[in-house]
């Protein structure tokens, strides 16, 4: 058993390779000049620069949050480079053929179906390589349906009215320390607009990847689903192996207008650091969606990477009868630390929310669920159900639950339950008795434990997530 654990712990990070592409990178440091330079590199309009500078001034006055159950050395924000673009981007590729082959190879290694596979998979990918969107495929087909899917830096030019109206409307600049930082220095991300009554013809997907050493990735995603529309958005993340910690502070804003539905799925597999806890990504992400009347936002996440995770995809249920969902699997091993969960803010009448969180801790990791369910006095007849289950593998890890329940409306019903246990000996015994080896048995039990969440994922993602989990768990228990 120990042998198996050792083997699993020593497993190398499979996505850990460095792409050899010349980059155009700013020197480390953060000040108003850097922000002006980012803005001018992107040829942004004046209002955008003003918006960034305002955020930066706010950020300077804010304090780094320390309430999360994570422990990491203080980040030196002056030691980070805030802009990095692959050089060959200067003359933008017009089609896939023009894309730097190195870049494509990187994606291939990661198994992203960017070429023909993509046609078969029917996925349009807006691939973010470090900071600049490299290529957007399937745009024409989407344009036919009236769907706007483009890098946010492009949307600033092409659809300034939408960007100006919605950027920062869900996550205000001053929302938190990292969101403020993101506002000031974000370089790129995705922008999606689904027009009224439109069902987006395919699942949209972005693959984020941090490549350049010591660069922070600050992407910004804005998705607007207009009245009665539907979109399913997939986000996958991975980063190559680096010795130094890299900062990732993204902001995702979702707006679901009346009767609209947004499904946002994430598989996050950033580099978690080595077994001693050296290196790895700091993932400090702010994700929030706003639901208008009868709208629905569903967050599904599978988190297996990052050295430190600080992430709470949330729903503000503003409109009556709106629905928020959060399905999460978070797996930590090695020295990983995750503090993740959700916030469901019920404002409208008859709003409903469901939270299903599954935490798995192995090795010497710490895995925390932190969630807030708030029923405002206006949330008549609102309903919440929360279930948090933790599974411990090994006696050196930790599993924690910090749920906040705040209720101000008597007709609102809130239920929270949480359990913690280990992989039961009985289950293991039963599986092995039926001829499964211990490794398979654990994988099967864990997969069963996470089933409720996996079934919420789109098909391709569910398969990937299951595999990811299986690999991560390899031999964790004998």
């Amino acid at each position, binding site marked *: 058993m120990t042998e198996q654990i050792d083997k699993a712990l020593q497993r190398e990070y499979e996505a850990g390779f460095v792409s050899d592409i010349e980059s155009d990178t700013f020197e480390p440091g953060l000040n108003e000049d850097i922000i002006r330079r980012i803005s001018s590199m992107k040829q942004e309009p004046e209002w955008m620069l003003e918006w960034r500078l305002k955020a930066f001034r706010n950020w300077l006055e804010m304090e780094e949050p320390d309430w999360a159950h994570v422990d990491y050395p203080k980040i030196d924000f002056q030691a980070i480079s805030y802009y990095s673009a692959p050089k060959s981007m200067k003359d933008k590729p017009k089609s896939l053929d023009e894309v730097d082959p190195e870049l494509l190879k990187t994606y291939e290694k990661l198994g992203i179906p960017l070429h023909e596979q993509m046609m078969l998979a029917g996925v349009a990918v807006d691939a973010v390589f470090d900071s600049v969107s490299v290529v957007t495929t399937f745009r024409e087909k989407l344009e036919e349906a009236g769907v706007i899917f483009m890098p946010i830096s492009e949307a600033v030019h092409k659809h300034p009215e939408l960007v100006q109206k919605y950027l920062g409307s869900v996550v205000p600049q001053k929302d938190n320390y990292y969101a403020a930082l993101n506002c000031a220095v974000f370089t790129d991300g995705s922008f999606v607009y689904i027009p009224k009554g439109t069902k987006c013809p395919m699942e949209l997907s972005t693959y984020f990847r941090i490549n350049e050493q010591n660069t922070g990735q600050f992407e910004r995603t804005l998705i607007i689903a207009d009245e009665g529309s539907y979109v399913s958005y997939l986000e996958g993340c991975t980063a190559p192996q680096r010795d130094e910690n890299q900062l990732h502070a993204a902001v995702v804003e979702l707006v679901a207008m009346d009767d609209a539905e947004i499904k946002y799925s994430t598989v996050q597999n950033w580099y978690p650091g080595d077994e001693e806890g050296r290196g790895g990504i700091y993932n400090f992400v702010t994700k929030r969606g706003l639901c208008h009347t009868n709208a629905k936002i569903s967050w599904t996440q599978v988190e297996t990477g990052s050295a430190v995770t600080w992430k709470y995809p949330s729903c503000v249920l503003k409109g009556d009868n709106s629905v928020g969902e959060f399905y999460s699997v978070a797996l930590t091993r090695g020295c990983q630390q995750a503090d993740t969960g959700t916030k469901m803010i019920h404002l409208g009448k008859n709003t409903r929310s469901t939270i299903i969180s599954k935490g798995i801790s192995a090795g010497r990791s710490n895995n925390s669920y932190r969630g807030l369910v708030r029923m405002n006095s206006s949330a008549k007849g609102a309903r919440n159900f929360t279930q948090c289950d933790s599974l411990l593998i090994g006696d050196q890890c930790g599993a924690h*639950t*910090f749920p906040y329940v*705040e209720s*101000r409306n*008597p007709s609102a019903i*809130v239920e929270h339950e949480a359990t913690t246990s280990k992989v039961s000996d009985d289950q293991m015994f039963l599986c092995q008795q039926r001829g499964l080896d211990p490794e398979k048995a654990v994988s099967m039990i864990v997969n069963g434990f996470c089933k409720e969440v996996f079934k919420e994922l789109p098909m391709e993602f569910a398969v990937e997530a299951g595999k990811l989990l299986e690999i991560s768990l390899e031999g964790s228990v004998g």
Partner: protein
Amino acid sequence: MSSWLQTAVERAADVSDGLALKRQASLELLCDAKWPTRKTEAWKYVPINVWERAELSGATNDTVSAPVIDGLDSLDVVFVNGQLQSVAAESIEGLTLISLSDAGAQAADLFGTIKPDRHLFGLVNDVLATEGVVIDVAAGAEIEKPIRIVNLLGEGAEAHTRVLVRLGAGAKATVIEHYSGNSLSRNTGFAEYQVGEKAQLEHYRFALQTGEAMSIGGCHVELAEHSELNSTLVGFGSALSRIDVDVTHAGSHAFAKMNAIYLLDGKELFDLHSTIEHAVPNGTTEENVRGIVADNSRAVFNGRIHIHRDAQKTLAELNNRNLLLSDRAEINTKPELEIYADDVRCAHGATVAEIDQKALYYMQSRGVSRAQAQVMLNFGFINELVDQMPNEALAEWLRPQLRERFASMEVK
């Protein structure tokens, strides 16, 4: 340091008794500590400035007799406005009751420091408490009569009292902490319990101050191997009422059963923080907390279970259920689990809802008036825990008070 504390500390500096040295040490810690604000996690929902701002006239030292509980026949220790008024004179084998002043210099060794990192007001109490009592139960002694510590608080009183209870190995005792008062006053009341090997402690804390009374206090229990704690806490809420219950499983195979009830009305506030530390293997904790919150009141519950790395085979369960009776009332609950051992079974649950409308309808259809039906349902919700109180006399004494409170609570 807040201005209130500044003046209080200056007053306390003139006191020279057995605790002087210890007080000095705590004062130093207190000076370094950060005074809580609304941003401090543990004080998030408590307007601590109410405590600081209140101007107290100072209480007159009247002789007041402790409220009698029928059929209880207890050994009473009575504090009035923070001054020790009487200690039961009856001598019982195996039991010693000594006041803080009688304990003299040795008191400094007896009293611990109440976990300053977690409870700032424990430190405040360390510094300010000049009255207290030490209760010792000899090993093997079974004290039949319950020991009752009564704190009566009158208008304008500022009281800081301290209790230390030590149960020797295999000892058995019942201790009741009883706080009452409903006019403007400020008090910190902390009690430490050291429960020896195989000893059994039956514990009650009745925090029945209401109205303008402000109270911040706590119970800190340390359980040795195979010891048992059966605790019931009842809180009514007042202008500011905060209790921190800390239970540490210091010896393995200890068992802790903790029930808590809070019933709030008007503009009352009640904040209960409980922390269970499982430091060693094979401990068991069962915690059940129920609350009813009416009118404009606010309840806060924070229940933390911390399972240390070595505490394998721990069984811990925490359950918090709340009824919200008005749309101006508020419940903030946070059951926390912090687990570092894998072979454990832990669960917690929390619910917030209103009275079951179907049950109300059913009762009305059987000819029970709506108001009466509400009282019955409320009572039923709470009585489940009252029924579990081992001391029947106390349960009998409590029930009419609960009923009275329910009758005044209106469902809006």
